[in-house]
């Protein structure tokens, strides 16, 4: 029986027992049923699996769950506060910044990491923060608008 791994996710503590090499993404989805973080490539090339770890947006598809132990993890599910949407989530709805929505969770996480660190990012900073994120539907320009809208809302 593997030793327990303590995970702090969305301000809740979880104790999981699994192969310590298991990717964090697999544990989030299969063990904890937090499936907003998605598998797009398993190679850290597309951003769909990103979660916040100590405030930084990090891919979870190759990160060993043991390496995520005892750190503060936030997933998309943790952004909603008592049913009320985070300004970034609201901005995505206001701009209708999604088509299929598969890339959405990873993008919102990356945007949160950016705006928490840089409240008034330049266009170049926004593009750089999202550079790894693949969207095949072509929603990119709406996402840029959503980020600007969210930045404004968060500054208020």
């Amino acid at each position, binding site marked *: 029986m593997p030793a327990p791994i303590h995970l702090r996710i969305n301000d809740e503590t979880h104790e999981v027992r699994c192969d310590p090499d298991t990717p964090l993404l697999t544990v989030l989805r299969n063990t904890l049923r937090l499936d907003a973080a998605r598998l797009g490539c398993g190679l850290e090339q597309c951003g769909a699996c990103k979660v916040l770890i100590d405030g930084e947006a990090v891919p979870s598809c190759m990160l060993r769950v043991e390496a995520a132990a005892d750190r503060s993890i936030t997933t998309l*599910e943790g952004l909603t506060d008592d049913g009320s949407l985070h300004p970034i989530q609201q901005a995505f709805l206001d701009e209708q910044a999604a088509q299929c*929505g598969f890339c959405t969770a990873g993008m919102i996480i990356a945007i949160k990491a950016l705006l928490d660190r840089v409240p008034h990012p330049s266009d170049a900073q926004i593009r*750089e923060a*999202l550079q790894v994120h693949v969207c095949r539907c072509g929603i990119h320009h709406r996402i840029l608008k959503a980020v600007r809208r969210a930045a404004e809302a968060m500054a208020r």
Partner: protein
Amino acid sequence: MTRVLPVMPGPDGTFLVYMNKIEIGQGVQTAIAQIAAEELNASFDRIRVVAPDTSMSLEGASTTGSNSIQGLGRIIRQAAADLRHHLLNVVAEAAKVPVEDLALDDGVILLPGGGSRRVEEVWSNDMVDTVERDVGQPKPSSAYTIVGSSVPRTDLPGKVAEGGHFIQDLRRDDMLHGRVIRPPTYDATLKSFDPPDVDGVRVIRDGSFLGLVGEDEQLVERVATEVAVTATWDVRTRFPEFDHLYDHLLSQPDEAFLVVDGKPGDDPVPEIAEPEDAVKTIRATFKRPYQMHGALAPSASMAVFENDELTVWSHSQGVFSLRGALAQVLDLDPDAVRVIHAESSGCYGHNGADDVSLDAALLARAAPGRPVLVKWSREDEHRWEPYGSCAVLKLQGSVDRSGTVIDWNHDVWSYTHSSRPRSGGDTSSLLAARYLEHPVPPPVPRPGKGSHSGIHRNADPLYAFSRRRVVKHFVRDSPLRVSALRGLGAFANVFAIESFMDELALAADIDAVDFRVRHLEDDRAVAVLRTVAEHAGWGTPLPSDEGRGIGFAQYKNEKAYVAVCAHVKVERDTGRIRLLKMTIAGDVGQVINPDGVKNQLEGGVIQAASWTLWEEVTFNEHRITSVDWETYPVLRFEDVPEVETVLIDRPGLPSLGCGEATQGPTPAAIANAVYDAVGVRLRQIPFTPERVRSAIENAS
């Protein structure tokens, strides 16, 4: 089989709409719900759409061809009007009042004198068989309050806040995870492998089909990787040389068809003959590589065999076609197979969705009673999905003294553009079928003869030329697996046509927009061109190395009209093309949801820009080498242009499908803008920095 109507009352004051089209991010669920709400005079919140399910849905075409609003939209509009008619007549008869004095209003039938009946008091499900069809009168567009407005997408609130919603999120008690170990390349036979000796993972083998199932996904994946390393295969596939792809295509035998009014016929194909009154005649050759759907989510499916029935959850674009195709390979009665749609990411055509369903069914058959969820890897999807076909196009055209096109020749060589699953016969396009102990081989491709389909989609231009000769050259044997990719032949054909129109305009010394307008007899086509030119600042000066270019098409010459203007900057030293702004003008007839239409037109432009600047499937002697996002680069955030879309509103005119309408005009708009910027003609997609630098060097 549950008896349902396309639109019928549901529980708690709702109305159910049974879809036979799937949501793939194009917003069809929202738009169809708007149509139903409009005809029922119901608030939008009352509508519940039900995803396609072969045990319940109206059997119908797949979600293809930009047909959802025109096809299902029309059915739902009429079915909702029929339901309204039925409900009012039932109440009229019971209350003995003229039906004209009644009104259906937000789930309630209003009686003259102030009384009312709720729909659920009036309706019972056995009325499914008695609702008269085609008698309800759909509303005139002048009365629309919901159709024509940008109702927000119903599925987005869930997608921005939580998990679930996608097929990869399905969970069942007793579920197994499945993985298939695929051969290194297409034509291969499994010789041997080391069976794993691991508790909790079971091997399932049928000929060269090799799979694993187990409860622990991580364990199944690890063991699959280990077993794959030990597997040995007899490999027979030899691909042509990547650098000689187009030579190979042109060297193969082809069947040539003269295309007239968009349809290939049996008339003999005439020779090209340069007319005597030609003042200028030009020729150009264009090339389009194999390109990928490259869905962000690798395909997935879940299947379970219970009580001699197979249930499959799939993101296939055609649940009924898939049901038949699965039944055929598994030797089941189609009535014993149920396919339920579950959403995956955007697919942009026929990708791995159907293949992975056969994988899941084969594994589930070996583990009866246990649902099996199979998820392809990124590499599986990149290697095995059927690609968009490569093509070579040769155009020749002549203008006379007045600058009018007096001769137009378009020859397009390509492979089939569709190998969607069907049932029947001795063949199957489902991937695993050809690897079984008793293999079911893939079908031999045949030339499509429909109007504006496949290779010749949009090959017949909308322009009024006095003489045209459009020829489709069907080449049967594609070295790479191919099927329908958004727009099909329209991407290559319109790229060539619209690039060539610019070349002819230059030869005639006429402005590119004016040149097109002179050859158009369709006012709506002219309107999108003039609108995009105006909004893009056509004709206003630009700094050096910046340029503007136009592309126009009416998809299939009968659906949405679109004009795209690209504003680009070319970096001479690197060869990078920077997209500064894309302006789009669209006319889709009666708009159901303006924001939804814009999203589709814009998404198509961005995607087509990625195809144009970045995308080509690569391969070596034996294997596909485009296996991930590094080996198949795509457009990223740093490349994204500003986008502006203008919709020309045509209330009351038939709605026209728009989901694929911008694919064709976009590459030409970019190519034409590059010419305007630096004076070089790009005729081979993708316009890589190397090709651009090389073209600039050759020009100077």
